[in-house]
């Protein structure tokens, strides 16, 4: 009996592992095919090497960039550290302001009435358009660059927190009130926990926005950073440097998003209502 029971339990687990490997292999395969096509397109001369360099050369340049500063003036580690600092400062500031604001807007109507017109007016303005004002208000240091990132990252934080708390189960709210909970207590103990999954979705979108705005932010008086590296590659007509910068932004952004997903799975699962 025990053997039959064990094999019955193992069967779905084995098929899950098999499914995972199949999915994993398919992803790796598609990536390899993409890289192979890219390499062939360059090597066979379909695209000039001045327009696109083969991935093998990009990898070589990427490895070299870990310890050499030329031609863009800093090593890849320095660029990654500068960009990560900038992205995290902007992102954290956006979370600190955006999440509470979105929650308050969703729970308290007067807050929504007060803030929403301004938020709706600011939201569609592309962060890059703020650069001249950012210089006037905050100078040319990290504050101005972080402000540009903050603007991009702030919007998803607000919207998702707002929607998250708006979707709180009304039955839970009624139960809390029947048991004598105040509006603030209901907000903290029912509204906020129920909004956590949506807040995390907002955080992921926000982190994504922070990384995509990096190049724009580093247009503003930067001497290092991945966005700066791309600009230097452009000025020096070096597509390999541009691609290394782009790929590094992609990898670093994906890594940070992965970390955030792990944090979400720990927090959101324990607090979901």
């Amino acid at each position, binding site marked *: 009996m025990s053997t039959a029971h064990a094999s019955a339990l193992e069967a779905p687990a084995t098929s899950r592992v098999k499914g995972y490997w199949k999915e994993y292999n398919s992803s790796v395969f598609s990536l390899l095919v993409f890289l192979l096509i890219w390499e062939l397109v360059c090597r066979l001369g379909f695209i*000039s090497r*001045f*327009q696109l360099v083969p991935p093998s050369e990009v990898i070589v340049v990427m490895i070299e960039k870990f310890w050499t*500063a*030329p*031609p863009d*003036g800093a090593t890849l580690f320095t660029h990654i550290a500068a960009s990560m600092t900038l992205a995290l400062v902007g992102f954290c500031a956006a979370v600190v302001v955006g999440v509470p604001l979105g929650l308050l807007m969703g729970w308290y109507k007067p807050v929504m009435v007060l803030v929403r017109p301004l938020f709706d007016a600011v939201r569609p303005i592309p962060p890059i358009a703020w*650069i*001249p004002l950012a*210089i*006037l208000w905050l*100078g*040319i240091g990290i504050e101005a660059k972080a402000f540009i990132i903050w603007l991009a990252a702030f919007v998803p934080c607000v919207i998702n927190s707002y929607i998250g708390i708006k979707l709180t189960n009304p039955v839970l709210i009624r139960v809390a009130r029947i048991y004598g909970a105040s509006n603030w207590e209901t907000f903290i103990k029912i509204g906020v926990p129920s909004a956590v999954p949506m807040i995390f979705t907002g955080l992921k979108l926000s982190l994504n926005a922070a990384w995509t705005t990096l190049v724009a932010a580093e*247009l*503003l*008086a*930067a*001497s290092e950073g991945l966005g*700066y590296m791309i600009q*230097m590659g*452009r*000025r*020096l*007509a070096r597509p390999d440097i541009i691609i290394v910068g782009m790929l590094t932004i992609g990898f670093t952004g994906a890594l940070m998003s992965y970390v955030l997903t792990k944090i979400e799975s720990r927090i959101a699962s324990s607090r979901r209502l």
Partner: protein
Amino acid sequence: MHHLSRITFIVLALVLTMGICSAQAKDEIRVSGQPCLHGLPTWWAIEDGWTKDKNIDLTYTLFPSGAPQVEALAADQWDVGAMGTVPTMMAILRYGAKLIAISNDESETNDLWVRPDSPILKTKGFNPKYPEIYGKPEDWKGKKILVTTVSTVHYALDATLKALGLTEKDVEVVNIEQGQAVTAFASSQGDVVCLWAPFSYTAESKGWKKVSSGARSGAMIPGGVVVRKDFAEKHPDLVVEWLDLYMTALDRMRTDKAGSGVWLNKYFAGYCGLQLPESAIKSEFELRPIFSVEQQVKALTAPDEASAWMKGVADFFAGQGRITKADMADLEKSNFGIDASFMKKVQEKRAAKK
């Protein structure tokens, strides 16, 4: 009979149409430029109808700066064009473009500015070899300098620091784009700002003081007129035809500054969306020496002129680690892409007309 006359009429109409079409089929030359003095000649030629009687049709594309212009060259989007020294060098190095003329000498319009209360203004001519540079080394040390790095004005800054016996390690260099540099400096950021025209005119209008420039520090900055490699090889006659028009405009700019100023103003205000005061338009001709055909031929062939000027810029880039030794060797091997043959043909063409 009636049928025959109808057929005759159709055939005649076809022949006439084909004749008109063939008469209208002109060779297209795609020209690129920037909102700068060196962009004016082609635009002027188009607007003033200089190509009406010629067998060429010019199309003009405006680029905000050198980087996108070079990218468009790589994508075969234009055939000939005028640009700054750095994009010219990159176009030669990466895409085999040829330098066929010097649009103007930009050494004085790549300049360094301070606010009127700057201590740098207290001394002038510390190094007698460079009497027009302001400040002593102590005045410059530790200063925050706003500059667009990997540019001609960065080259002018480097030459200025060298003239004072300093290096970039003695100051704080902040990389910033030109428009942002003006905004930042106006809001009290930085101690020195490095600009090029037309941003320099904004600096002048704000009361900032010029403390050095490429010309004052011995850095020669030639504006480049380049041709795409393929186009030069396949259509050398068209290149000469266009270059002749370009030189006609340069000749007028040298000899009739007032008349050319009207066109420059039209180009800046009407086409590029740049509103410059009359004094700035005047300065464009005063501060940027323009070469005649004879001077161009000499500059492009003499070893101490165009090739030496380009080498100066290339040495600076190599010293900064922006280009490799192999890149430098390629540039030297190609004599910095300089090709005087087109300008010589323009000279011959003009001599034959006389």
